[in-house]
């Protein structure tokens, strides 16, 4: 009896392997692709993914249809874990997750059981600095006042960029402001700023500034560079004196270089990943795509290639455990 089962099993495996090899030998061609979004409908990740879904197919062999599905949970941690565990690794599923996933295991020991390096990065849309800003009415208009006055900064959840960068400025530079957590989104924080309940917020991108620039003070930046049309601002991490803290801050700032990334599961064949990466970089230069994304939030596309992201992530994760420890404390 056992022998029969064993034989049957062996046959199955043989057939399976043969099938898998067949699939590999063929030139890469995509049929239908699902972009899974690690957030609920409506946010930036969802919107950009739906736009990408409209255009990406044109740049991939086989001209696949692309559909979007929301898989919200834990700020895209749920989807990241699915990508690392259960999603098919054949290019039929692409995931849009938070760039913060690249250091999630480092910052939160609870997540130590997954390896961001195993993710295959396809590319990202935005590479730009983040800001701290305050309402004009708050009177906090210079870096000195920002670091030395008593006031409130608004943030959403503790794992959000609005909290992480506020905490980085506060802990890294021993600033006196307090962070109020629990807002629903950046629009809520801006409304509270207009009501005068809080003074400002951190970790915001140029999108948050564009609508009402004349009512805001920009205080300083995280990451390098500056937004289009803005004067050069001081960078928070440059003001940190302790070298190790500065290194930890740089580690956290790295993710600003690959905002809104796409990833595919670890086992995805090399050819498939390459085809996706190539198509992605062609897409981000396409006038029709750029016109569409330009409508969305006046966002400036400044893409980072998948290869570059992988390099950045592995560099990020090469830092010593003491730097990780410092980074953890920095964003507590």
């Amino acid at each position, binding site marked *: 009896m056992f022998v029969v089962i064993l034989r049957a099993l062996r046959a199955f495996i043989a057939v399976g392997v043969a099938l898998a090899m067949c699939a590999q030998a063929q030139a890469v061609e995509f049929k239908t692709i699902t972009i899974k979004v690690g957030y609920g409908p409506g946010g930036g990740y969802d919107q950009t993914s739906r736009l990408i879904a409209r255009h990406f197919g044109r740049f991939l062999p086989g001209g696949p249809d692309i559909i979007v599905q929301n898989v919200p949970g834990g700020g895209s941690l*749920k989807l990241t874990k699915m990508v690392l565990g259960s999603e098919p690794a054949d290019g039929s599923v692409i995931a849009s997750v938070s760039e913060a996933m690249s250091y999630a295991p480092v910052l939160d020991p609870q997540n130590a059981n997954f390896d961001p390096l195993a993710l295959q990065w396809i590319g990202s849309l935005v590479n730009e600095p983040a800001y701290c800003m305050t309402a004009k009415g708050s009177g906090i208009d210079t870096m000195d006042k920002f670091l030395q006055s008593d006031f409130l900064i608004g943030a959403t959840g503790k794992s959000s960029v609005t909290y992480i960068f506020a905490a980085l400025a506060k802990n890294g530079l021993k600033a006196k402001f307090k962070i109020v957590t629990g807002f629903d989104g950046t629009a809520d924080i801006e409304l509270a700023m207009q009501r005068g309940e809080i003074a400002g917020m951190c970790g915001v991108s140029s999108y948050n500034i564009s609508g009402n620039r004349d009512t805001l003070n920009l205080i300083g930046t995280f990451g390098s560079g500056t937004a289009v049309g803005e004067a050069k601002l001081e960078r928070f991490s440059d003001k940190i004196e302790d070298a190790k803290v500065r290194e930890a801050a740089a580690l956290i700032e790295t993710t600003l270089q690959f905002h809104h990334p796409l990833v595919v599961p670890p086992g995805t064949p090399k050819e498939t990943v390459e085809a996706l990466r190539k198509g992605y970089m062609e897409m981000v230069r396409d006038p029709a795509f750029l016109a569409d994304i330009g409508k969305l939030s006046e966002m400036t596309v400044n893409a980072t290639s998948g290869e570059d992201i992988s390099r950045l992530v592995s560099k990020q994760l090469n830092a010593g455990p003491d730097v990780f420890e410092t980074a953890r404390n920095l964003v507590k």
Partner: protein
Amino acid sequence: MDLILTAIVEMAQPFRMLMLVTGVFVGLVVGVVPGIGGLFAMALLIPMTYTMDAYAAFALLLGMGSVNTTSDTIPAILFGVPGSVGAAATVLDGHAMAKKGEAARAFGASYSASMIGGVFGALVLAAAIPVMRPLVLYLKTPDFFAICAFGLSIVAMLAGSQPLKGLAAAMFGMLASFVGIDKIAGIDRWTFGEIYLWDGLPVALVFLGLFGLPELASLLLRGSIQGNAERPTYAGMWQGIRDTLREWPLVLRCSTIGSLLGAVPGVGIAVLDWIAYGYASRRPGSGPKFGEGNVRGVIAPESANNAKEGGSLIPTIAFGVPGSASMSILLGAFVVHGLVPGPDMLGKNAALTMSMVFSIAVANIVGAVTCLVLTRPLARVAQVSAAILVPLVVTFIVVGAYQTNMSAFDFALVIGVGAVGMAMKELNWPRSAFSLGFVLGPSLENYFFLAYQISGWSWLAQPLVLILLGLAVVGVVRQTLSWIRARNPGGPLPPALPDLVAGATMTLLAFAALVTAATGFPFEAAIFPIITAGLLMVFSLVTTVQTTLRWRRRATPVLSARDGTPGEWSPVSEPTMKGNLAIIGLCLALAVLILLVGHLAATFIFVAGSITVLGTKSWRSPLMIAAAATAFVYSVFDMLASQPWPAPWLAGIGRFF
């Protein structure tokens, strides 16, 4: 005036009107089918609007969003299954009316109330245009907390004949709402390591299970929706419309509740529905008791939930702060069309804003009229045999539930909550109170901590906060006094022994929650759960003691036939265990089938199989009904909402051959 004319001229273009009507029809379908909400449909429609002009785009989106709350009452009234979270309150009296053969009247009342409410909400939006920004800026974070606290005090109105159980149910609901990652400390509360629970229990699934499954069990036992009640007449519909017109003060008040609360971020449709319902229940009028088929219980939530669309656009337009979840998706459409929420929408783009008012109003009218036309065939469903209806409704509940997260947990949750709902229904724990606690819990906690972080305790002295909290206290005190006065209402009580077991279980559960919260969570994350669990423990302990005394005395007749109609606040008077088990069995069978062979094949096999098992004469009809059901599931869940479904297990095995 010019503005209104411009908006009407702009909207009069055929393509824009076509989009509006298209939106309305999509919205009606989305509302009827449990599991697909307006939220999801909005996300699907947005990419289609990229190529349209802004007027057409918003006509489509708002047309869709405005009418889901009109059609979601159809399954609520007929089957007791809320088509979306906004219809849960309508289930109580609407379904009770259908059971009495008054489905057509309930439909007439609900659609006309929806229409008036929707138009009212649109007018509120129009009237708010000049004062919108100062209005929204006037309300501060503590005011939002006070509004939620006031909303929670409505629980007192929903507590029913055994008030302690009502209060306990509300606390139980609140406790359930704390499951997931908390927003202040960012730790996970009672998720047992499951990522599924991180974002909390999905409201749509909880309401489907809580209200839908228990009603199905009794439908199965009755044999058809209205049992032996007389044949529904078309005239019932006109009677319903007349009811709404006669109750115009109620309609206007509840529309006001809906549009104003709709403007408060964090107070969603699920909340304002119950508040309107609770408000109406204070004055039941001449009809039957609330929960037993009082038409006011249909009119109140229906006018409120349609009025919210206009209200929730206020903060969205004025500040880009979404007044509801679907508004946050609508914001995506703003940016796509190069619109910046804020002063521009009230100045430069005011004509567009006015066209939104127009779209909402017209959509509500078109939606309600369409539904009214469909009333006659729908009311006939009330006579169809349960052997056919139950499998179909189970299919929509289970497939709709699975659609939420495409995870086996969806099944477990909806069936588990369904079982809890059955027990609550049977043992007189009001599900309405549970629901209000469940939907308000997170906002209460969140606004409290925001207010506290921003201004310590000083916010308690703000005038609006004082007024609202004062009103809440007065309401609760008045209700308590009336309970004390009517010490022994003499209503029918559920059987003592299961009641005792339930009370004791709840006490233990509360104790366990209290201990885990106190020992495992950091202070900010623990305080609300501790208070809630503590109150739950006290309430359920007292209930348990009361029941024990009753059990020892064995004096009260367990079931009195004094009050024939079982409703939300009187326990069922017939043995229902068989029906409950049958429904849970059916759901489990379908869930397993879906996992094994996928949702389409499963629908076919399940519908054909269960109709045959439940009893029918011919062989042909089950197959035909199953085929039609499968085609419908395909067109809704695969074509309308095109999404990838997980590969069924059998297909996974089949791949090796």
